[in-house]
């Protein structure tokens, strides 16, 4: 598989402006390789999109960044420190500076919206009740759901649930925000809302955002840098214009949404003719 790297997004050396970096990361599950030499740089203050066909391990990449899994080879560097070398305490300290939005929100179902957003504050700080209340209301206001504070997750629509999860993710004012498929299953309006929030929060809170998605059209409206993964490696990276003018076949198939190409339409199967007629010949 040919790998086309755009010069502008090449990971730079030490002392750069990247808040997170994956350097030549290899990772396999049950013998099946998922990443074979992955190089990604997340620039500080930017919205970075990670895209690729289903199954390329985009969620796994996020778990490498948060330290939920560890690379077999290579380095995962977040905020200047190798995640793989951190002990439990340091890892937890690092995670407090990250916020993550899960695919289905992952709100705690036995707590209401207010308590969900307050959860990290209650667990990690000893703020007095009235301060917690203020912070929670501010975060909910930022996502437009201050009025839903007393509802339970079961009562929220998909889009609303995701916004509450976002409010929770920013409750502790993280440095890095990670979004795992934030647009999956949303109607156009909700999608627009989430898009706007991602960009606004990134700029207003001066953070860096990593968005894993395959909604190319949506994310390209707000992403500063994009990476396209395929077969365990980066096949294209850079700004929107660079990707669209890429000569790589897989990139063109992905961006154009073509049904057949380097990612084949047919799942590997024996010869059609033989399988249909082969049985008749005894």
């Amino acid at each position, binding site marked *: 598989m040919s790998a086309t790297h755009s010069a502008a997004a090449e990971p730079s050396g030490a002392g750069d402006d990247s808040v997170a970096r994956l350097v030549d990361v290899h990772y396999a599950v049950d013998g099946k390789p998922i990443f074979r030499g992955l190089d990604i740089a997340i620039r500080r203050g930017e919205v970075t999109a990670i895209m690729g066909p289903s199954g390329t391990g985009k969620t796994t990449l996020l778990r490498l960044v948060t330290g939920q899994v560890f690379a077999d080879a290579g380095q995962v560097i977040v905020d200047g420190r190798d995640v793989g070398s951190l002990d439990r305490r340091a890892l937890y300290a690092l995670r407090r500076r990250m916020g993550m939005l899960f695919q289905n929100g992952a709100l705690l179902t036995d707590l*209401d919206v*207010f*308590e969900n957003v307050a959860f990290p504050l209650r667990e990690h700080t000893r703020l007095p009740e009235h301060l917690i209340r203020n912070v929670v209301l501010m975060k909910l206001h930022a996502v437009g759901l201050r009025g839903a504070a*007393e509802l339970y997750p079961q009562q929220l629509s998909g889009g609303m649930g995701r916004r509450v999860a976002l409010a929770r993710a920013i409750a502790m004012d993280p440095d890095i925000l990670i979004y795992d498929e934030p647009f999956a299953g949303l109607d156009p309006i909700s999608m627009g809302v989430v898009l706007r929030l991602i960009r606004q929060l990134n700029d207003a809170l001066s953070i860096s955002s990593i968005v894993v998605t395959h909604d190319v059209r949506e994310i390209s409206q707000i992403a500063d840098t994009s990476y396209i993964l395929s077969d365990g490696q980066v096949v294209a990276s850079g700004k929107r214009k660079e990707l669209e003018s890429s000569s790589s076949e897989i990139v063109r198939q992905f961006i154009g949404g073509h049904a057949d190409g380097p990612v084949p339409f047919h799942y590997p199967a024996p010869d059609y003719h033989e399988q249909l007629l082969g049985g008749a010949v005894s």
Partner: protein
Amino acid sequence: MRPSRTIDLSTGLFVLLGFAAILFLVTQITNREFSLGTSGSYRVNAQFENIGGLKTGAPVSMSGVTVGRVESIGFDMDALKAVVTLRIDGRYDRIPEDSDASIFTAGLLGGQYIGITPGGAEEFLHDGSRVEFVQDAIVLENLISKYLFSQADKGKATEPSPQE
């Protein structure tokens, strides 16, 4: 924002109910003698040839009233007899020294216990005393063989003198 008050209340009630049940079980259905503490109780011992099925914890009674418990059972290699240590409740501190300790059986098939029949001495048992007069447990085999021998003797006595 959470109905925590009801939860606290219900949990509290539940725990109290649980403890009440435990208290009930412990006090109402057990024999109250667990209060036979060490408040002034004293030990005496007695030696037996045969203790039969006597076990530690068996009651020691006088006139049917439990006054103590069998604390331990051992064997004296010098006297070659079983030594039974009895713990008597401190309230019963005027048991005559010459009292008699016997091993009885409760009911037909019940457990064995020690019954103390008071004597007439003016000295009383105190901590460390030895009960001198004892009666062993009745062992069925001995009874049977006694009976058989006594029958055999009777037979000899009533046997007609040999004929001419």
